[in-house]
């Protein structure tokens, strides 16, 4: 079966991309994960990897042309699959049709339910039995293309089988509530702070806080899913991402204060919010929760700092080293259980950030404040144990940076939960993004 | 039954013609004996059915035919191929399944054909050639230039429905077809005295209102004469005939046949009436060609058979993908 290569969405803000260069010609074989095309967005130029192995059958957007996020860039035929020009055109037509439908529905408030043509529908029953989802081949393919989780789709076909219409409806419902995402800059005591806002304004509020050496881009695989159900904000902390990088105090305490002022600046609707913090961002969130417990609805700590003394020294060394692609690749490799997660585009993205003016200095300052001497300075276990609101520690089982054992500290809280994800390193929100999204969304959504 | 050594038709045969017929018979005999040896040595895939002993029928009939005339044959078809002029090298190559074979290796012994020489194929279905020859007769009649179709079939086929249907059709449409029954006394392992409800196949001709004669198939002159009459009749537009040639195959139904159903005495008795030896004697007695001259012919034939085998053994097999070609003229 053929696969459509679409214009990626790097972060919520990206709207269009420019095709800089095709790295493969029509007729050439491609391997899944192999770079196929170079795309330039407003932020960066990156390579896009082939989503599937096969042969590059057709290039839809040539070099030098722009296309919106999600638009079809090329058709990759499966190995041995022969597609006539008519079939290629049909594939592209259908792909555009699906995306057009989704876009049309996306502006509506509330969930839009599409009724397929035909007579009466059978009662909507879940299509999962014994772990295997009942879905037609076409529905499976569509679900893959649209990143719809079949387990969450209700099927209306024979015996509750999920059909294409069901998948389309689920995709629309997921998108419909999302609304537009907003990229903005908030001034926090003179520090220009870059952030993204998305999701229905009347939904639960969630703030995402990245870790050492990261930025709001770390949440790229999560925000679309959350934006369907939550009003979210992801920020670049002071000294990171596209926010200002003044020479200042970058300790956890200072960053927690920064967070408080940032939320004040966002507006009264952010007075009380849930927090999701990764790594050092988890420590920041935890510290904030300890100081302002009335402002924190629920807390999610993702492979968080602050729950023990151990931290991987080599990772810290690599973070501190000169931001060359080799160093960054080596650093990033330690973040994942599966080294193939470190794609060229990720390395390039990180390098671009680390080489901005002041970025390297701010990074070193932050690292030294929290982890100078190769150990964690901040022990927030007592703070955690004293929290009454629901707390979830979610951790990668194979975390090579901060040991998974630290997650157990969450059990000391009155309403503490621990979730360990297998086959996963320090960044479960990237490496096991679907499972992460499901688990965290379910945790945040509980009544 | 008549031996027609002195009949007018035979008298008209000159030495060249007689030597040609002798050479053809010897070619068939040596070809079959060589095939039998090579088959026993495991060189030939599939089945072979040897014609040795019956040479006089093929040669006696085909001597009257040109490339413009048609013949159909059966599973014991090597003799007809040779008598109709199919190339020896192509024949051996076909037995070995080589690309240079008459059928590009796609048919094998039972399906050797050369349509351009009017040889419409050996046939693996007993009785299969009868309607085909009748159809060739229909073409001949439509084309109106005096072509003839000859159908060689065995005593076994004489009972098949296709025999009866074909003779009837040829009769009602007066087609130029000569049906030549090679009665070698056995249909596989079953003797004709059991399997046939009449004594001679030629008796059945009356049922289809056409001339039917029985001749000594071991006598080249008898075959030649009867065939000549029937073929001339057909060319004149007077319709079909049936000729039954009583003959004998020296080897089994197929190579590998234990031939338990025939006695050694019977085989020896037929060998003593060998058609080639008879012709030799006749040519010597009439002073047409002495033994030495005929021995020389034998040697030349041996050379050509050897050459054909050398050629065929060296020839390449077809590529496996060739299995996919030649099903249709075009598809779609």
């Amino acid at each position, binding site marked *: 079966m053929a696969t459509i290569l679409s214009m990626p969405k790097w972060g919520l803000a990206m709207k269009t991309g420019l095709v800089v260069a095709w790295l493969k010609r029509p007729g050439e074989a491609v391997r899944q994960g192999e770079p196929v095309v170079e795309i330039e967005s407003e932020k960066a130029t990156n390579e896009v990897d082939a989503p599937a192995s096969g042969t590059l059958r057709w290039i839809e957007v040539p070099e030098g042309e722009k296309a919106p996020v999600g638009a079809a860039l090329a058709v990759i035929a499966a190995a041995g699959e022969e597609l006539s020009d008519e079939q290629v055109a049909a594939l592209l037509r259908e792909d555009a049709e699906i995306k057009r439908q989704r876009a049309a529905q996306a502006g509506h408030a509330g969930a839009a339910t599409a009724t397929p043509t035909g007579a009466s529908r059978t009662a909507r029953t879940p299509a999962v039995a014994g772990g295997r989802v009942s879905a037609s081949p076409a529905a499976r393919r569509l679900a893959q293309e649209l990143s719809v989780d079949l387990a969450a789709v209700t099927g209306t076909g024979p015996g509750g089988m999920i059909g294409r219409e069901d998948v389309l409806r689920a995709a629309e419902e997921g998108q419909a509530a999302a609304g537009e995402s907003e990229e903005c800059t908030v001034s926090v005591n003179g520090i220009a702070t870059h952030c993204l806002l998305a999701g229905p304004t009347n939904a639960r509020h969630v703030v995402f806080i990245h870790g050492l050496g990261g930025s709001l881009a770390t949440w790229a695989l999560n925000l679309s899913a959350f934006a369907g159900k939550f009003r979210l904000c992801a920020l670049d902390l002071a000294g990171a991402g596209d926010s200002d990088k003044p020479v200042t105090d970058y300790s956890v305490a200072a960053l927690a204060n920064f967070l408080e002022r940032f939320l004040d600046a966002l507006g009264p609707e952010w007075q009380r919010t849930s927090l999701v913090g990764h790594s050092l961002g988890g420590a920041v969130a935890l510290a904030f929760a300890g100081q302002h417990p009335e402002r924190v609805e629920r807390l999610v700590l993702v492979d968080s700092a602050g729950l023990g003394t151990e931290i991987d020294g080599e990772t810290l060394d690599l973070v501190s080293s000169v931001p060359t692609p080799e160093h960054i690749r080596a650093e990033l490799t330690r973040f994942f259980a599966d080294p193939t997660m470190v794609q060229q585009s990720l390395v390039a993205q990180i390098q671009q950030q680390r080489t901005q003016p002041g970025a390297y200095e701010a990074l070193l300052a932050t690292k030294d404040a929290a982890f100078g001497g190769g150990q964690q300075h901040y022990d927030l276990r007592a703070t955690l144990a004293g929290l009454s609101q629901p707390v979830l520690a979610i951790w990668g089982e194979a975390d090579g940076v901060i040991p998974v054992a630290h997650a157990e500290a969450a059990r000391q809280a009155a309403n503490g939960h621990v979730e360990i994800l297998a086959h996963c390193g320090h960044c479960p929100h990237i490496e096991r993004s679907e499972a992460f999204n499901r688990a965290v969304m379910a945790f945040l959504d509980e009544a | 039954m008549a031996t027609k050594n002195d009949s007018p038709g035979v008298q008209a045969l000159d030495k060249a013609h007689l030597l040609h017929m002798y050479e053809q018979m010897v070619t068939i005999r040596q070809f079959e004996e060589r095939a039998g040896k090579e088959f026993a040595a495991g060189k030939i895939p599939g089945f072979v059915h040897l014609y040795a002993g019956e040479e006089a029928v093929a040669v006696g009939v085909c001597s009257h035919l040109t490339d413009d005339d048609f013949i159909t044959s059966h599973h014991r078809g090597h003799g007809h191929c040779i008598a109709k002029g199919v190339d020896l090298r192509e024949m051996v190559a076909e037995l070995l399944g080589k690309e240079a074979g008459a059928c590009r290796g796609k048919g094998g012994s039972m399906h050797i054909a050369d349509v351009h020489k009017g040889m419409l194929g050996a046939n693996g279905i007993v009785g299969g050639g009868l309607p085909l020859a009748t159809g060739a007769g229909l073409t001949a009649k439509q084309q109106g230039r005096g072509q003839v179709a000859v159908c060689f079939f065995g005593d076994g086929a004489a009972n098949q429905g296709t025999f009866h*249907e074909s003779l009837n059709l040829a009769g009602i449409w007066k087609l130029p077809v000569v049906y030549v029954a090679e009665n070698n006394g056995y249909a596989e392992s079953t003797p004709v005295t059991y399997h046939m409800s009449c004594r001679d196949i030629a008796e059945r001709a009356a049922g289809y209102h056409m001339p039917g004669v029985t001749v000594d198939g071991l006598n080249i002159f008898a075959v030649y004469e009867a065939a000549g009459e029937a073929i001339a009749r057909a060319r004149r537009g007077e319709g079909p005939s049936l000729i039954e040639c009583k003959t004998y195959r020296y080897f089994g139904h197929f190579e590998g046949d234990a031939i338990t159903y025939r006695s050694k005495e019977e085989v020896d008795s037929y060998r003593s009436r060998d058609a080639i030896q008879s012709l030799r004697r006749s040519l010597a007695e009439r002073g047409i060609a002495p033994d030495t001259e005929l021995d020389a012919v034998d040697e030349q034939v041996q050379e050509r058979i050897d050459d054909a085998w050398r050629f065929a053994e060296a020839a390449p097999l077809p590529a496996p993908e060739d299995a996919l070609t030649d099903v249709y*003229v*075009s598809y779609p």
Partner: protein
Amino acid sequence: MAIAIRQLTYAQAINEALRIEMRRDPRVILLGEDVAGGATVTGFEEDDAWGGVLGVTKGLVNEFGRDRILDTPITEAGFVGASVGAAATGLRPVVELMFVDFFGVCWDMIFDQGAKLRYMFGGKARCPLVIRTMIGAGMGAAGQHSGCHYSVFTHMPGIKTVIPSTPADAKGLLAAAIRDDDLVVFFENKMLYGLSGEVPEGEYVIPLGKADIKREGSDITIVAISRMVQQALAAADMLAADGISVEIVDPRTLSPLDEETILNSVAKTHRLVIVDEDNPRCSAATDIAALAADKAFTELDTPIKLVTAPHTPVPFSPPLEQFYIPSPERIVATVQELMG
């Protein structure tokens, strides 16, 4: 060149194709039982008593004479085999096997001789023969005169199978079959002989191996064979009232099969029903279903459904025969089941 349009029946269209091709090529001859009828009867020297049992070849002997229109005795193996032999030696015969159910009597000549001689002779021979034969139930002709069985012929390498559903298709496809150099079996549904339709005048050819979209639609693809095209069209009208848009694909030729048109249609509608009057086991319907399951797997939103005759011979009594033949109602029910 086809210019004007007028109405002909399916039978008349076939007659016209034969006439045009016989004028065009003197090597084309017709053979079969009673294709003229009355052979050697006084008064029928140049006239036909029947012109075919259902009159399809009526009048041809008047123009072409009894040297080119040959009545045969009832000896299928003999005259079908003779047609093979004639085709292999330079004629272009069109032989009629009156009812397809008789193929057992001459099957060797068709499948072991005619279909295989080109291949077995290494491509050095050809059999440009057309076998016309009647198929189809509905006339009360019972078990030995009502079958379809084109699947058996389609199965054999070396045979091409053509099954027209309209008069215009019948004329163009028969012309193509006669001009084709391979063995083509041309299946005429006897229940369609009276069907009228627009048929272009003059000479035209519809290429073998090209399907036809008889009705465009978007919700479901129905592949229908022979008279089932007409049944499917009736079903589509009924379904349109329910807002279901049916696309009907008529393969017209089963061997070679126009896979692309069928697969493109399934890629468009994502649902496939096949309607086939033949018995269901090892049929054209299962063949096409396997094709879609293989090459359109990820396009399918619902299982492939086959609407066929049952696994029985054709019954005689009218209510039984009507039960046997796939009806528009049965097609509608199957589609509705898939559409939910």
